[in-house]
């Protein structure tokens, strides 16, 4: 295995070559930066990177190299270059969330997810572009300009984790971290033809993830393949005492290589007191024999609400092909219904802005970030700082959120939205307790759209229509490339019950294998 075909290598392959001494971390990090230069990851071109420091990354690589030479335990990501969405706190590189208000801000502490990646031998290449404070579906809302889709530079990469998806699609890194609140990992993954996973709420620590809507936010992983995503998630998942909402449920091994012999299968070892148990036992088919990728005995639900008559026919065809391939792997496809799905977008656009209006109050010009003095006292400073610091979409959502939490409106909006959110979660519970193991849907209604094509905010919000339910319900979901529509990639989404990432990856691996080259045709 050679570093010459770096862009084709999976994370697991890179790490094993590095551990075996066939490849050095310095070589892989240089290959990553070489690819970034070739493809034009900089601000005037694809605008994928917001902050990169090749020198620092190389010295990080040298550290890993020493650990390899000393035969220390360098971890499953030894020498793997990784890109990080710019709303995840990192040491050394700035953390700006794509916002003017945090221009130049460098965090004095590191997100737990990054610490865990680095503990496993990963190296941080760059912080990637994003919609400001993760509010958007196209990465056009970045204060630092839009990111372009590497597969078609006229198009958006999706968002808000557009930079991370683009970095993986462009072959700069096999794995990138993104974050989700309503589909911000899965949607750009689908638009860029890569894999994006949003774990169960609580599966990954949010410590260091700059909050947008705390009850929905979750760090997710973008990978070139299902295996890359599985490996990345395995490294960052698990309880963290710094995040009270992180779950102490055991983390099973997600990768295919060890599937079928799960040494730490969470479904049996789960602590009876954890969230997982309270939501009821997850129906799980018997594990397949080691290495087996068929889906015999697996029931996959096809919710009618996600295949409306209005859905693009080519999109429908691509989905049907994917369902056929799942059938050919032995799965049973069952028509199901998630009746409250149509309420998901309205509910989301009440709850997420409500939490955001509070979470973004800390950007007040007092302690860090931008401060604009207006000469009109404290209130004037607040107004000037926040007016200049926040972009239009962020301002819109803060206003919306402030409104729905106001006295006299709270019950009509926030409280009612919470009640509907429960109903949406109940939909999933009902399906998963009726013998359905996984749900298949398109990830998005359409493939990537041209930059500047959508100017109506509500039309933009509809991009999340198939992804946002998983955030509201807290269940895990993954987007896997399933083909092309008008030569642009589209994704298929697999959703499973709370903490059943194991089952989700099993279906994803099988689908990826069954589609083969079709996934990108």
């Amino acid at each position, binding site marked *: 295995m050679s570093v010459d075909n770096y862009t084709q290598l999976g994370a697991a392959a890179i790490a094993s070559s590095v551990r075996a001494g066939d490849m050095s971390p310095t070589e892989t990090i240089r290959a990553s930066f070489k690819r970034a230069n070739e493809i034009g990851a900089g601000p005037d071109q694809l605008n994928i990177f917001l902050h990169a420091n090749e020198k620092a990354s190389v010295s990080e690589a040298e550290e890993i190299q020493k650990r390899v030479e000393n035969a220390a335990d360098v971890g499953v990501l030894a020498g793997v270059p990784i890109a990080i969405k710019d709303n995840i706190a990192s040491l050394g590189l700035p953390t700006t969330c794509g916002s003017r208000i945090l221009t130049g801000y460098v965090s004095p*502490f590191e997100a737990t997810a990054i610490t865990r990646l680095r503990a496993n031998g990963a190296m941080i290449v760059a912080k990637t572009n994003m919609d400001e404070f993760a509010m958007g579906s196209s990465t056009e809302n970045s204060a630092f300009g839009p990111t372009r889709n590497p597969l078609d530079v006229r198009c958006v990469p999706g968002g808000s984790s557009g930079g991370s998806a683009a970095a993986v699609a462009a072959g700069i890194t096999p794995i990138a971290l993104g974050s989700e609140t309503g589909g911000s990992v899965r949607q750009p993954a689908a638009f860029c033809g890569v894999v994006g996973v949003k774990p169960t709420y609580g599966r990954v620590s949010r410590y260091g993830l700059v909050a947008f809507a705390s009850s929905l936010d979750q760090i997710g992983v973008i990978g070139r393949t299902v295996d890359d995503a599985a490996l990345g998630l395995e490294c960052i998942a698990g309880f963290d005492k710094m995040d009270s909402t992180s779950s102490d449920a055991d983390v099973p091994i997600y990768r295919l290589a060890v599937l079928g012999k799960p040494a730490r299968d969470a479904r049996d070892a789960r602590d009876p007191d954890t969230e997982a148990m309270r939501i009821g036992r997850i129906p799980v088919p018997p594990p397949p024999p080691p290495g087996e990728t068929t889906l015999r005995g697996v029931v996959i639900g096809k919710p009618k609400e996600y295949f409306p008559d209005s859905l693009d026919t080519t999109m429908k065809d691509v989905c049907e092909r994917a369902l056929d391939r799942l059938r050919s792997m032995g799965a049973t496809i069952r028509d199901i219904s998630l009746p409250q799905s149509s309420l998901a977008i309205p509910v989301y656009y009440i709850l997420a802005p409500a939490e955001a209006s509070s979470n973004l109050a800390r950007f007040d010009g007092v302690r860090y970030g931008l401060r604009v003095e207006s000469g009109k006292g404290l209130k004037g400073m607040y107004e000037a700082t926040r007016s200049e610091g926040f972009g239009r979409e962020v301002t819109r959502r803060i206003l919306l959120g402030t409104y729905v939490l106001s006295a006299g409106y709270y019950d009509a909006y926030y409280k009612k939205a919470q009640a509907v959110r429960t109903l949406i979660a109940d939909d999933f519970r009902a399906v998963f307790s009726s013998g359905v193991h996984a749900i298949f849907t398109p990830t998005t209604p359409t493939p990537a759209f041209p930059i500047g094509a959508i100017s109506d905010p509500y039309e933009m919000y509809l991009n999340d229509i198939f992804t946002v339910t998983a955030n509201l319900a807290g269940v895990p979901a993954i987007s896997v490339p399933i083909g092309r529509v008008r030569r642009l990639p589209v994704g298929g989404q697999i959703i499973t019950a709370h903490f059943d990432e194991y089952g989700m990856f099993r279906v994803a691996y099988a689908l990826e294998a069954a589609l083969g080259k079709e996934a990108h045709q």
Partner: protein
Amino acid sequence: MSHERYEMVVGLEVHVQLKTRTKAFCGCSADFGAPPNVNTCPVCLALPGALPVLNEHAVELAVRAALGLGCKIDPVSVFARKNYFYPDLPKGYQISQFDQPLATGGSVVIGKTEKGSDIRIGVTRLHMEEDAGKSIHDRYPGATAIDLNRAGVPLIEVVSEPDIRSAAGAGAYLRTVKQILQYLDVSDVSMEEGSLRVDANISVRPPGQAKLGTKTEVKNMNSFSAVEKALESEFVRQCALIDAGGRVEQQTLLWDGAREAVRPSRTKEGSHDYRYFPEPDLRPLMLDEKWIDDARKKLPELPDARKKRLAAEFPISPAEIEQLTVSPALAEYFEAVARASSDGKAAYNWVMGEVQATIRASGEDISRFRVRPADLAQLLSLVRDGTISHTAAKRVFAQMVETGKPAAQVAADEGLLQVGDEDAIAGWVDEVLKEHPEEANRYLSGEKKLQGVLVGFVMKKSKGRADPKRVNQLLSVRGG
């Protein structure tokens, strides 16, 4: 006087800092008095990406306080965000509890009515919250300095029912609550250090009217007596306003201690909409019944119980018991002395006399007072068995405070052991009679009231060592 035509209706909100080592949601020290912004971290500075983690000890102390105030603990309570902008509030919201507080439905007894029944003040609720930082406006010209050491320190807010009917009642309520919290050891309850703060809600109405009048909120009182003064002043202001045909306006007032008057606060109340909603970064606080029961069983003895027990155990009056039980440390000290010396009365006299005078002069804390209860009990025993005189005992005590030596040793070293020996005393008596012939003659010829003077001379001559009882006996014999 307006006082007869109106009744004062008061409810108090008491904010109490819990005695934890660290802050409510991070590991920073909660100590008072560190240099500005030293006790801070990403969490209490509200840096992007930081998250709160609840301090378990703070929950224990809050639950203890709630149980001590007779509240019912809710097995599920919910933290909520109280949103407002202020430079010393780093997150732009305070983590508090709103519609699902930790505890509700308590009460405290603050005294007795003329007919002897309890005056009971209801405790509406007790909830947990974090403190804000401190804005310092007068340090730098044209600028405000922010100290965030206090930001995130755990507090409880104890909200009373509007059951209080007088300024004195408010004082009694505050002293009772403070005493209970002291006994529970959940807080330093010091208004000077800001670990206890009081806001008062006050309205007036004609006696017998059920409907409450419009209330004002009075803040910025720095002592219990300031609370009483502020209430009295605001009561008079409201009564006068109504008498003049005006209406009380709902507003926040600040007590100006120097002027002894209230003034309107600069921030307009009512324009505040705190936009409370459940704090998504913290799960609901769930306490199981067994844990709450254990906490209840582990509650220390409360002031009322202690008073009853002391009354049953020692021959001291209710008024004396009140004095002794003001603080748990004082009561414990007394009890230890009384028990070790088997003399409750003497223990009371000494603890409230010499001991209190000494620590008041030195500003010492009784729990760290050099003369331990066992040492004082020994001194009392020496007095009772006649080994030293009462006069000498005071000198011995002073030496004990000075040197830390035990009573017996001090008495021996100083030659203060009382002399009961008949011959020695007879010798001193003879000398005194000789040295004071005039008094001696008058006494011996029947002027009995001079006996005290002569005893004094003998005690002086003996340097306090003579047993005064024996001296009296001898003089009586001589005087026929």
